[in-house]
């Protein structure tokens, strides 16, 4: 136990402010307040891998490490589309995932946002469109925002999600 505690002490707090808000850390507090006032709770994200190579998932998972501290921003990943405000979709959409993606989209309550994450989700990238791949997510469901990169870095993902959360606020 002592070991654990001393390591926690030594590690300290690692959480960084998202780059775009570096000069204005109150922006995060504002965002948290905004999110709570609109939703009465955190922004809930459902991630859907529609055929990715798993590279994009690795970077989404990195958002949960102490440097990014996503939950501290009032953003959390949820296990069901029914609890989601936003779908974060990766990969070129494989034909074998087409139906599951559409079903997840339909199961997400309105108003919903769809973010296409990664070059594949944007346009199919190196996989293109083929007998097995439908290419970008927008070929199947409406996309509100795209985060480019292969894979996009966690800071870019965070920035994109914050942007969507803000526009969601403005829209409401």
């Amino acid at each position, binding site marked *: 136990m002592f070991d654990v505690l001393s390591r926690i002490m030594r590690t300290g707090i690692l959480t960084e402010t998202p780059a775009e808000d570096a000069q204005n850390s109150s922006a995060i507090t504002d965002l948290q307040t905004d999110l709570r006032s609109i939703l009465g709770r955190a922004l809930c994200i459902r991630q859907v*891998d529609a055929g990715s190579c*798993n590279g994009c998932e690795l970077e989404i998972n990195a958002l949960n490490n*102490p440097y990014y501290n996503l939950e501290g921003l009032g953003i959390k990943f949820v296990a069901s589309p029914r609890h989601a405000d936003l779908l974060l979709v990766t990969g070129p959409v494989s034909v074998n995932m*087409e139906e599951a993606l559409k079903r*997840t989209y339909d199961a997400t309550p309105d108003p919903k946002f769809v973010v296409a994450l990664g070059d594949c989700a944007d346009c199919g*990238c190196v996989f293109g469109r083929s*007998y097995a791949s439908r290419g970008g997510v927008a070929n199947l469901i409406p996309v509100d925002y795209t985060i480019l990169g292969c894979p996009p870095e966690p800071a870019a993902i965070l920035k994109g999600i914050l942007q969507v959360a803000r526009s969601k606020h403005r829209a409401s």
Partner: protein
Amino acid sequence: MMMEFDRFDPPPAKFPGNVPAIRVQANADHWFAAAEALHAAHAHFLSLWGADDRDRDNCFRIYGAWLLPDRVVVIENALRDVANPHYASLAPLFPAASRMQRAVYDLLGISTEEPDMRRWLRHDGWPESVFPLRRAFDGNQQYPVTSEPYPFVQVEGDGVHEIPVGPVHAGTIEPGHFRFSVVGEKVLRLEERLGYTHKGVGKRFQAMPQAEGHWLAARLCGDSAVAFSWAWCAALESITDTLCPPRAIALRALALEHERMANHLGDLGALGNDAGFAFGLTQFSRLKEDLLRTGAALFGERYLMNFILPGGVARDLPAHASALLSAQYLKLEESVAGLRSIYDEHAGVQDRFRETGRLDHAPAEQLGALGLVARASGIQCDLRVNMPWPPYDGLQVQPALQTSGDVAARAQVRFDEVFASLRLCRALLADLSAGPVHAAVPIAEPGSMGIGLIEGWRGPVLIVLEAGPEGSIRNCHAHDPSWQNWPLLEYAIIGNLVPDFPLINKSFNLSYSGQDG
């Protein structure tokens, strides 16, 4: 063993590649006999794939690849009955062949007499009569999805019920379907259905020039980008007589060991978390992030999707790299050693790790385990040890080996391998020769075939590349060791509790995209 093949006509030929390999042409009669001989020699089954060669010499071909202790053996079987291409199933000898045979049927319409020939990669996205890897098929053709049911195996009995999970999972992980048959909380049977992320990479390779194939190879399985892109380049370099500069080879190995460490650190954190010890996740995910950031600063990317290319690597390390890395290795080593003793002494973690998801040596051997999972069940197999290709031939890699085959053993192998990788990275940096990091690569002779086999963090990743005319790719077969290890997860979960599945699954951490292709 070799005697068997010497009687073949033509005799075995050297197969160009980064590891010693031979290619044996067997006809239909010798195909199964060759597999039996390999089985008797305790060869590890590596892969199975096919090709449509009707345009060239009017046959389909089926290939099998095995690992002997010191070489790879590829057996090739030309199927002359093109109206009804058929070969003898290898599954009675090598159970891992079963799903690969189903995949070969889905892609090429080459069949075998296996009782289980349910579709594997084809779900309902293209018509039953369409075989996408046949040469005349236009890969850009699209079909509407039809909803076809999949006949899962039913388990019957008092109090047995089914829990279907997926393809979309609760966490941020890849898609696949798991069907549990349970009594109370106890798992009687798990059946996996994969193929959801099939992206048609075999066909895609055929539409790319040799000079670009490494882009796709790096994206077959994102966590193994270095391993697959190296395998791809090794295959191409072997058929173009390209000699990579020594500095480039050392940098590739440095990148591969970084990839191994990053994945192991991530898994060790996730394993702690799944055992109810969130502290582990926080600590290990921080260490992983530190390593990725250093990687980004030195190699130019966090995940090295664009680092390895034919002839060498895309960029050299900056001058301050050595000092920066040495300092980081020191910190990493100290932190991981500390965390290891915390894990080892934590009663809660050990209680969840030990005896959970056990895969004993005998079934692991019989079912054909590969890589990390095999080493945790006492099977000594690591290409860096058995067939060390440059620069590993000068590094004396020590294999990590555990025998208990449970979650604890798979965690220990990861710990051991992090320390071993640190040692290798230091040795690579200490011996780093000056010089260029890239050599020009000519185009390969049409019809030439090469093999790239790299021990990635999960196990051996394979690329078999056949050149087409004018710098094109005629065929490219990619194989991830997850093919072998997925069925072992079905085995290891039997008799365990449903709530232990995430932990056991994480201890295997297999690739979906890598196996789906």
